[in-house]
């Protein structure tokens, strides 16, 4: 349950047996070919996998260096990679005989992905969402409710994702028997960070196969992904971890700048415990958790997955950051050059692209994870354009 010094399961005693049950059930599921088969069938026939690896010819010309490919998670059902994980977890929930699903959500993407699989599997669904986020992301609330989910406002603290997560954990503590908590990123207590990563590694696995088809080689020179909690990044990085020659670059949200309000947990945080795991954390000197800021509600989280903390410390992954302005530039460039309007989260991955493309040069290859589409962000984008 640890990645170097990070991870673990810092949870109330009530959840200890619940997590133990989950670990065992997940281990059994992993060993059961029928589980994997059903998971992969759903990914193929419901989610729309494999998602394409799109060669970005115009973006390549625009940056004038390495060939750039986009792994098109924006084409997944519900519009982002999130559903790879909710499909996996709901299969596990059903296997464990759970009938009631809870989830936390910030921008609403994981909430929508959870409400979606709950509708598809006929399960009760309660999504916790910060009251402020519910107002900012009204349409995602409507989407969840339309699919039969109940969206419960988190009224405490900053009334955003962090607090929605607290509320989800409180609900879980109160309903440990019938309830399965579908966590939306590679965060939370063990086994979640490992499990969520494993449900997303299909992104990287497909990328390898597709890149071989396109280029005759499975490994690009660099893989770039945005990092909030870090699930899309872990999904595409993980199958490349052992390939030391592949540069892995994670892009955090620098918000208004690293000296202002931001969400750059790895760049500016320090290790600590939040939501059940030890990891880097934005906190004050007294250990109180700080409120993160990003133009992208999906990166607006003061924590990060523990495996990322380990990958930072070991240096295997380079973590950089992109400001709100750089993210908006990324939206514009990808929209204008490739006709792909990315999610604001995804757009952060564009920030280091010019530098990388030139460093690597025209003989090299960069893959970036186009983790979600921008429809949900059009109001924000329109306001800042």
């Amino acid at each position, binding site marked *: 349950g640890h990645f170097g010094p990070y991870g673990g399961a810092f949870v109330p*005693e009530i959840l200890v047996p619940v997590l133990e049950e989950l670990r065992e059930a997940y281990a059994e599921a992993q060993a059961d070919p029928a589980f994997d088969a059903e998971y992969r069938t759903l990914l193929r026939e419901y989610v729309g996998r494999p998602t394409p690896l799109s060669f970005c010819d115009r973006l390549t010309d625009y940056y004038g260096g390495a060939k750039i490919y986009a792994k098109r998670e924006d084409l997944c059902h519900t519009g982002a990679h999130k559903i790879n994980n909710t499909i996996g977890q709901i299969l596990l929930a059903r296997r464990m005989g759970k009938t009631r699903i809870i989830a936390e959500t910030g921008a609403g993407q994981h909430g929508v992905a959870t409400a979606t699989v709950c509708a598809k599997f006929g399960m009760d669904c309660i999504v916790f969402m910060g009251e402020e986020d519910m107002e900012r992301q009204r349409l995602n609330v409507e989407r969840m409710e339309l699919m039969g989910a109940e969206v419960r406002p988190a009224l405490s603290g900053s009334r955003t994702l962090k607090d929605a997560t607290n509320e989800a954990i409180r609900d879980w*503590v109160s309903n440990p028997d019938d309830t399965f908590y579908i966590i939306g990123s590679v965060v939370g207590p063990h086994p979640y960070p490992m499990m969520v990563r494993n449900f997303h590694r299909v992104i990287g696995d497909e990328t390898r196969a597709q890149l071989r088809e396109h280029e005759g080689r499975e490994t690009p020179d660099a893989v770039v992904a945005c990092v909030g909690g870090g699930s899309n990044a872990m999904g595409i990085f993980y199958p490349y971890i052992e390939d030391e020659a592949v540069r892995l670059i994670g892009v955090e949200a620098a918000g208004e700048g690293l000296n202002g309000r931001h969400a750059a947990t790895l760049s500016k945080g320090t290790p600590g415990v939040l939501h059940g795991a030890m990891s880097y954390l934005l906190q004050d000197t007294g250990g*109180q958790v700080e409120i993160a800021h990003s133009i992208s509600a999906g990166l607006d989280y003061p924590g990060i997955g523990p495996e990322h903390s380990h990958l930072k410390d070991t240096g295997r992954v380079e973590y950089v950051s992109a400001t709100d302005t750089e993210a908006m530039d990324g939206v514009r460039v990808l929209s204008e050059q490739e006709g792909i309007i990315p999610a604001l989260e995804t757009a952060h991955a564009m920030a280091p692209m010019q530098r990388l493309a030139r460093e690597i040069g025209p003989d090299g290859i960069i893959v970036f994870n186009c983790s979600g589409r921008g429809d949900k962000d059009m109001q924000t984008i329109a306001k800042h354009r």
Partner: protein
Amino acid sequence: MSRLSDTLAACRAQGTPAMGLFTTNGFPHPDATVPVLHAIDDGGADFIELGMPFSDPLAEGLPIQRSSARALSHGVKMDDAFDTAASFRKGSDTPVLLMGYINPVLQYGIERFCTKAANAGVDGLILPDVPPEEATLLTEHAQAAGLDLVFLIAPNSSDARIQRVDELATGFVYAVSVTGLTGSRLDGRGAVQSYLKRARGLVTQNPLLVGFGIATHEDAQELSQHTDGFIVGSALIKEIEACWDDDTLSDADRYARIRQFAHALKHGDAVAAGSNPAE
């Protein structure tokens, strides 16, 4: 034997359930915490849990969440908890445990934290988001500083786990009464009793105390049948909140009411010290 163990042993010897009372440091106001502690001490608390406020108290119900947020809004820091404990200690020998989440402790530095706590007269620690599996980073330092380390069990803890917790815990084993948050309603009393009875049989090396959801003397009596005592938090917090939100009360009235509340919890009467607030 620690001061906490001595106290609990004494209660046991007297045949009365020990009463632990929880309040949050800096709540309702930093200046009020020490007098509140003395009031509940006077009211009959056998030991005190002093909460260290945290921004994200994920095992707490609304009253303790609110108390934590209120304390933080006053700028309360970790050192203030040591000051509160030390100040209280000057006027009382009642054991004090610090209760809180691991992150502020980590940031303070565990060794430094344990030393400071012990120097301030603190007797033990309760960290609800640190189950035994994650406690290795603490145990050595706590032991070195002479601090008891209380662990929790819950209704869904297996027999084996309860025994294991009993082996690791010092001071006492904290039996969470319900699968829920602090301040949850106690329902299904039969199930609670049978769980406490089961725990009673398994916890052999430590006193067993029950907490969560106990709001009245009757609750306390009922749940203490199979335990060595009980702990009340949310109900006290709500009482403090009510007193301080009532502008018609003088501070003296407030402390008196808190003392009376503690007394009533323990003894079931509403008279005692409370009848003579000027005492």
